Structure formats: C-alpha cells, structure tokens
C-alpha cells in the first residue's frame, strides 16, 4: 500500500489543509462513539451506584420492578442469535456474491444484485411483521410456542445477508483477471478456482463484511423483539424463546422509571462491551493483516 502520510513536507497549503480537515472529520466518528459511551454511563450511573455492577450477573432473575437485575440470560440470548445468524448468513451471502460473478448468466446477475440491494433496505419492522405473522406460526406448528431463538436467527439471517453479500460482491469485482485466467489455463474447474484462488485473494473484503454484518446482528432491535418471544431465560433448544439485550431495552424503556430505566442503560453498556470484545478479538484474529 502506498500512503501519503509522510509527505507533510510539501509547502502546498491546500494539501495541509486537506489533511488536517480530514483528520478533523475523522475525529467526529471517534467522538460519536465517545459521546455514546459517556451518555450510556451517565444514564446508567444511578443504578450502578445503588446495586453495583456485579449484581447484573449474579442476581437470580431479571425483574427490575422488584429489584432483580440479572442480565446474563440476555447476554447469552444475544450471543446465540448473533452466532446463529452469522453462521448461516456468511456462507449464504458469499455464495450469493459468487453466484453473481461466476455462475449466473449476466441477465440474472444484474436483477439478483438489485434484489439483494432491496433486501438491505426493507425496514426491520417489515421483517419483524412478516416473521410474526408468517414465520412464527409455522414454527409454532412444529414446536410451540413459536416465537423462539430459531425465528430470531432466521429473521436476523435475512436482515444481515445483504451486508455480507454486497461487500463480498464488491470484493470479488476487484479480483485481478490474471488469477482467473491463470487458473483457467491450468484447467482448474470453476469451484476450485473460486475456493483456491479467489477466496484467498479477497480475504480482507470478506472479513470487513463479516465484521459489519456481525455488528448489525448484535444491534438489531425491532424485528428481533417481534419474533424472539422475549422470555428472559437461557434457551435449552432453538425452539425456546429468548430475549436479547437490544429487545430488552426497546421492550421496557418506554415504561421504565428510576432504577429500572437506568438498568436498561446498563444493558446498553453490556452490549457495547460485547461489541468491543468482538472488535478486539477480530483484530487479534487478523493481527492487523486483514486490512491491507
């Protein structure tokens, strides 16, 4: 990679101006994160003061109206829903992009891409609504009650699929032609080329896609609230209802007061901590090489 960073010596003021204003702009992104963290902490402070952080993990249950604040089941709920959907959506999304580039005749590739772009913009309430009236009754037929971890995973999968699919699509478009021609000249069949040559070449883009989709999966609120059942428990099967941290906030924030309200902001903080853990471990996995 080339970088212009060392070239601070030029006397061209426009360049300096540009560099510094870009830095200013970029700082905004960082500042927003800071502001959000500070905001969450300030709002959560009262309850942290009263009950301390530990009880959010050791209390017998989540009944904030009665002073019980255990968040652990929701932490698991969030983790299960996220993991499940990322595990399904990632291969589906990547295969979708592969379809567009290497399998679909061009008359199909274009509308298919458009279709995925559309999926990216359907509001989460529509997904949730559809899940509630179509998907959940279907699941209820198999194994009551219907609203369940499974429903959440399926809806989340549809929702995050476009993110990974479009990112993968953009990365595949950048694969140097010479790799493809080299592979073809060796008589490598299509899938072998994709698996052996294309995927290694687009690691960085795929990785970015996974990070973004995971973020979206963790953060999704409305749809998950409508299909997951929202019972605070650690699920023992995928047919059990769960509640995620986001659903917890959305569900109870509207009518919560005092410590209950502050406790919901602790949910937000815990969620943020989860995201930070995710980002850090992603960095650790890639060891800084993936972004190159």
């Amino acid at each position, binding site marked *: 990679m080339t970088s212009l960073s060392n070239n601070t010596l030029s006397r061209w003021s426009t360049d300096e101006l540009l560099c510094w204003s870009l830095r200013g702009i970029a700082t905004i992104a960082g500042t927003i994160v800071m502001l959000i963290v500070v905001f969450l902490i300030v709002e959560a402070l009262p309850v942290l003061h009263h009950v301390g952080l530990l009880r959010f993990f050791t209390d017998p*249950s*989540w*009944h*904030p*109206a*009665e002073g*019980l604040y255990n968040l652990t089941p929701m932490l698991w709920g969030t983790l299960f829903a996220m993991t499940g959907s990322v595990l399904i959506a990632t291969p589906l999304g990547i295969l979708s992009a592969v379809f567009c580039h290497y399998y679909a005749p061009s008359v199909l590739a274009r509308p298919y891409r458009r279709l995925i772009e559309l999926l990216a913009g359907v509001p989460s309430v529509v997904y949730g609504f559809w899940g*509630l*009236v179509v998907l*959940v*009754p279907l699941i*209820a037929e198999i194994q*009551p*009650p*219907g*609203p369940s971890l499974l429903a959440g995973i399926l809806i989340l999968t549809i929702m995050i699929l476009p993110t990974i699919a479009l990112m993968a699509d953009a990365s595949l478009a950048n694969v140097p032609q010479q790799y493809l021609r080299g592979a073809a000249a060796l008589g490598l069949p299509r899938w072998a080329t994709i698996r052996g040559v294309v995927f290694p070449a687009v690691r960085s883009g795929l990785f970015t896609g996974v990070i973004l989709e995971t973020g979206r999966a963790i953060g999704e609120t409305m749809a998950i*609230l*409508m299909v997951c*059942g*929202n*019972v*605070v428990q650690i699920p023992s099967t995928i047919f059990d*209802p769960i*509640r995620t941290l986001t659903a917890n906030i*959305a*569900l*109870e*924030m*509207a*009518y*919560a*007061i005092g410590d*209950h*309200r502050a406790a919901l902001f602790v949910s937000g903080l815990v969620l943020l901590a989860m995201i930070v853990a995710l980002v850090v471990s992603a960095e650790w996995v890639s060891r800084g090489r993936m972004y190159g």
Partner: protein
Amino acid sequence: TAQTFSAEQLSGKLVITGASTLAPLIAEIGKRFESHYPKVRVDVQTGGSSRGVADVRQGFADIGMVSRAMKAEEKDLHAFSVARDGVGVILHKENPVQALTDEQVVAIYTGKIINWKDVGGKDAPITVVNKAEGRSTLEVFLHYFKIRNTDVKAHVVIGDNEQGIKTVAGNRHAIGYVSIGTAEYDESQGVPIKLLSVGGVAASTETVRNGTFPISRPLHIVTRTPPVGLTKAFIDYAQSKAVHDIIKQQYFVPMVD
C-alpha cells in the same frame, strides 16, 4: 369548556409526549383541536408513559400521556383522565375453551396448569403470553389476579397490544391479555381470536363503560403546573364530549357519558 376561547386568542405550539397507546388518540384529538384554532399546532410524540412523565418534569413537553394510574411518586404532576381502557383475556378462536375462572387464569399464568385438557380443552401445551415489565396492562392484570410478576411462567413476552393479538392469532394454544377495544375491533375484522369473560362479566367496551368489567385502566394526560391558557384549553377540549366520537373511533372508552 373549549368554546370560552375564540379562535383568534389561542396560538402557539403544544408538545405532547408519552404512551404510545394514547398517541393515536391524542393525535386525532389534536388535529380536531387545530381545526378549531388554526394558529395552534399540536405535536404528539411517543416514547412511553415514563418518557411522558420525564419530559413533562423537565419541561421538554407541555403535556405528558400516561396510560396507567398515577403512582405515588408522581403526585407532583397534575393528571387528567381522558378515557378508559379495559384489559381482557384472549384465546385463539379455535380453542374449545369458552370460559376460565379467575383461579384457572392464575394457575395457568403461574405455571400450575400447563395443558389445556386440565381446563376442558384439547390435549395441548398452553402457550402463556405475558406483557413486558413496566407496561400498565401488565400491572393492571397482575393486580386484579394478585399474581407477582416473578411467579409468572411466560412462554412469550410481548410489548404492544397488536403484537399480543398477532401472537395469539398465530398460535392455537396461546392465552394472552390485551386492551379490550383493540381485541374487539380485531375480532370483528375476522382475526381468529376471542375475548373471555372475567369474573362472569363479558369483556366488551360496553361493560367497561358501565363499570361492570373489573379490569380496566385509566388513560391520563399530565402537566407539571396547573394548566393555563393553551394547555388548559386543550385539556378541557380532550375531556369534553366533543371528542367522544374520536375516543370510540380509536376503540377506547370515554370517561363519562
């Protein structure tokens, strides 16, 4: 009443925030109010009862909407009830169970009865639909049946009424409780649910209105200081007979006839 002000005297913007249950009703009342007083604008926002209380206290809103009885620690606010709302138990339409005693409801909600055959229905597990912590429907329901929320063994926890109705409509073995007006309307529209009578009284807006139905909640609007001027005019208007048709249109029950 509202007619004490002439259309010219009143002007300005009224910000109302609070319970989402009340928002469509107050918004419609606001629109009619605006049509009487062209220089007035009524902005209705949602966010929940607690948000209404908080916003009014901070002076961020002129009026708050609270869809429950006022709590002890909210005595600093001035509350005005605008309508009532009954809470009724619903089942899927195909469920053969026609009535449940209060004890049976309690047993179902506390997990002592988990199969419909124990209350005269088919052999199928019961799906218990409960409301989320903090919702006034929940509080009213629990209060009437004298259940502690920690004892409730729910299979699904929901937020808004429509979510409850859609959940029960999509699961033949579910039991839930929602706002009676909403349920009545949906039932009339062919949604496969049915309202159960409670304590022998049929659940309908009619029984809520005449006071015989035992589970109901008042819908309030609140202010921080005693209302004057525009705020007072609006509150008076919202409590007047002139809006009873709107209240009925939104499937709530007017306070007085």
